[in-house]
């Protein structure tokens, strides 16, 4: 495709820095730059607390982005993750409120996402509904279920759950919640799955060309469906993490969060056309978005509209820098 033409030439270049890593590297460099600029501009910016908070505040988004990476790598998209996350928080809160025990509620909440993801996968693969539409319908569906279960926000008071959620480890200034731990585990698992299993490589193959993957005799159907199951499950898990984070379930949570997840994945260097990208890049993308938000808060004088404009501008600067860095070697 489009990438093949320039790729022809670089293969012969003496410097052997694999082009595929450039976007991720770009993201990383710019992220570091942002930290440095933030650190010199604001007091208390480069503290362990801020960095810890960056992870704590974005654990759920990390999980969403990881799931989204699978789907985008196959060349698809999942618009439902924000709504599924909300559904998962609502299910968690409602069931806990009804007195169900935590060990039952947790798998149920995640399972809700799995089931919706499965439905997406089946619709997309077997009925050839376009991913955008199938998951958009899924988004409405999940949101609708939220309202049916509970339009109002429900607080979670279950001591077991709260205990799980508030587990904070302090090593000096470094703090961590179990959410961050879970998110990192998910990330690690995703990395292993994508790079060390046939399923993972098939995900990439499908993104490189579904027809080709099919003719290569790879299990396209199963893999594609599974990618949506992974994304759905991650959304369910993300909901759980968000419920731990906010200790409540609310049907309007996560509106447009799918955009954050998609943006994170794309900023992390993954191509929306599928087949190229790394899950670690997606996490860097999440951190970039989180950092932009942190900078906005530290700036402290922005009115609502300037907030949006500045977010847009930072995003732009970021994308341009990353683009420049990853184009350097062509």
């Amino acid at each position: 495709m489009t990438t093949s033409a320039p790729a022809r030439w670089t293969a012969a270049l003496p410097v052997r820095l694999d082009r595929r890593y450039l976007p991720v590297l770009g993201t990383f460099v710019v992220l570091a730059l942002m930290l440095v600029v933030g650190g010199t501009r604001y007091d208390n910016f480069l503290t362990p607390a801020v960095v810890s908070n960056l992870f704590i505040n974005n654990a759920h988004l990390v999980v969403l982005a990881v799931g989204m990476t699978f789907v985008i790598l196959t060349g698809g998209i999942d618009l439902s993750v924000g709504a599924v996350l909300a559904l998962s928080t609502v299910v968690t809160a409602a069931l806990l409120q009804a007195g169900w025990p935590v060990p039952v509620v947790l798998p149920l909440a995640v399972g809700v996402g799995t089931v919706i993801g499965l439905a997406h996968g089946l619709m997309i693969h077997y009925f050839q509904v376009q991913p955008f539409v199938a998951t958009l319908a899924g988004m409405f569906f999940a949101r609708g279920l939220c309202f049916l279960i509970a339009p109002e926000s429900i607080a979670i008071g279950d001591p077991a759950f709260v205990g799980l959620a508030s587990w904070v480890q302090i090593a000096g200034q470094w703090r961590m919640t179990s959410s961050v731990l879970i998110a990192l585990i998910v990330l690690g698992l995703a990395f292993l799955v994508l790079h060390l299993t046939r399923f993972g490589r098939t995900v990439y193959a499908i993104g490189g060309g579904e027809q080709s993957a099919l003719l290569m005799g790879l299990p396209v159907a199963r893999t594609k469906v599974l990618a949506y199951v992974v994304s759905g499950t991650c959304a369910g898990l993300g909901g759980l993490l968000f419920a731990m984070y906010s200790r409540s379930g609310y049907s309007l949570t996560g509106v447009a969060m799918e955009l954050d997840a998609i943006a994170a994945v794309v900023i992390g260097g993954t191509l929306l056309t599928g087949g190229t990208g790394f899950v670690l890049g997606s996490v860097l993308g999440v951190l970039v978005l989180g950092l932009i938000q942190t900078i906005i808060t530290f700036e402290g004088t922005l009115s609502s509209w300037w907030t949006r404009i500045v977010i847009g501008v930072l995003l732009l600067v970021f994308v341009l820098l990353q683009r420049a860095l990853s184009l350097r070697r062509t």
Partner: protein
Amino acid sequence: MTQQTPPPVVEMTGVTVEFPPVTALDGVDLHLRPGEIHALMGENGAGKSTLIKALTGVYSPTAGTILVDGAEHRFSGPADARAHGISTVYQEVNLCENLTVAENIMLGAEPRVLGGLNWRAMRRQAAAHLRRMGLDIDPASSLGSHSLAVQQLVAICRATVGDCKVLILDEPTSSLDADEVAHLFAVMRSLRDEGVAILFVSHFLDQVYEVSDRMTVLRNGGLVGEFVTADLPAAELVQHMIGRSMDVLEAAEEAAERAERPAGATPLLQVVGLGRKGSVQPFDLDLYEGEVVGLAGLLGSGRTELARLLTGADRADVGQARVSGRPTRLRNPRVAMGHGIAYTSEDRKGEGVVDGLTVRENIVLALQAERGWMRPLPRRQVDELVAGYIERLGIRPADPEALLRNLSGGNQQKVLLARWLATAPRLLVLDEPTRGIDVGAKAEIQKLVAELAADGMSVVFISAELEEVLRISHRIAVLRDRRKVAEIDGDGASMDRVVDLIAGGGAA
């Protein structure tokens, strides 16, 4: 036959495949025996690829039975077929450019460690497979960084991984040069001797005669018959394939001999020291009106790259170009087109066909792009133009509204040729224009090139088939290791001389 023939491993009877309203295959039989190389022959669009896809479950036939080892099978797809020991290399390269060479070869039969992929073993095994095919490339490099020919070889490597009892190769040699073909044949023969049944499609008659034991001939979706190769003279085979006598072909081949070169005026395109880092070393080349210049060289010698620089497909870092004596910079294909320079890429699938558009739209695309969107070609003119090329090049089905993706490979190639001819270029750069084209059509195309040159067009002709290049070129530029090493006159060139130059005899 006196010898005891083993029972067929694949037996297809009465297989019919329809794409309403087209009947692509109509009651075709195929018997494939272990330990044989079986050629599947037919013109472009005869139904060869469709038969293969019907066998491997890509298409499901509307009628007929498929027996594998005596048991009836309907595969659900290539994966299923492969699981039953049938591996296939389909006509277009169907691999994933974004993955590494090693993955493309090994995925599906990958070595594992602790339940995960064992990358090192995978690379090692892939390298072994590559070596057997005579390829020395880094298995960890990404497939997209290699030329089409290499990709084709990688695809063949993939098919031979694991134990297969049936190997199907749909036009594997169309983009390979003699060396690679020899390697491939060696591999094929050794597999045959191990008892593998090989189904082989090619439009090169000499290759078919060289390697195959038996053949099945198709015409227009129907079965003509099954023959023992040694018993069927080439002339008869061609007659079976095209349904006409060989004479027609010979007449065409006569006509394709290069015409007298007109006396040299100023060159139409003159390049001096044109080059690009990582692509081709700076070279000089003059192209005159009415002249066919052939490019000869081994796989990866840089013919394609040179052509791309001439046509603005890639931008040169150094050097000058003059069109009719006036300096110009061939910045992009559009600029080149403005000077009357046209380029057909060798990568039909990636850079040629716009598969979601119709035959008509594909043919007028370049002409229309040149005119700009605001001046649409009048419908009448388009219809005439398209009908003309369909007729002239024998494009089948002869339906201007057919989606290009539904055409057979050879017919797609003809459409692309028509696209460029329609722009009436002054310089036409043809990169492997006869790739995947049947004997009849190939002769037609060669004839066409000769005629165009006689009418004053300048043509650059690239082909993996050296004879073809020799026959129609007035002049031949020889490339080696991405460097133009010689330029010889077409009249004085003998096959041996060119081969010598290509091989380079050690000294650069």
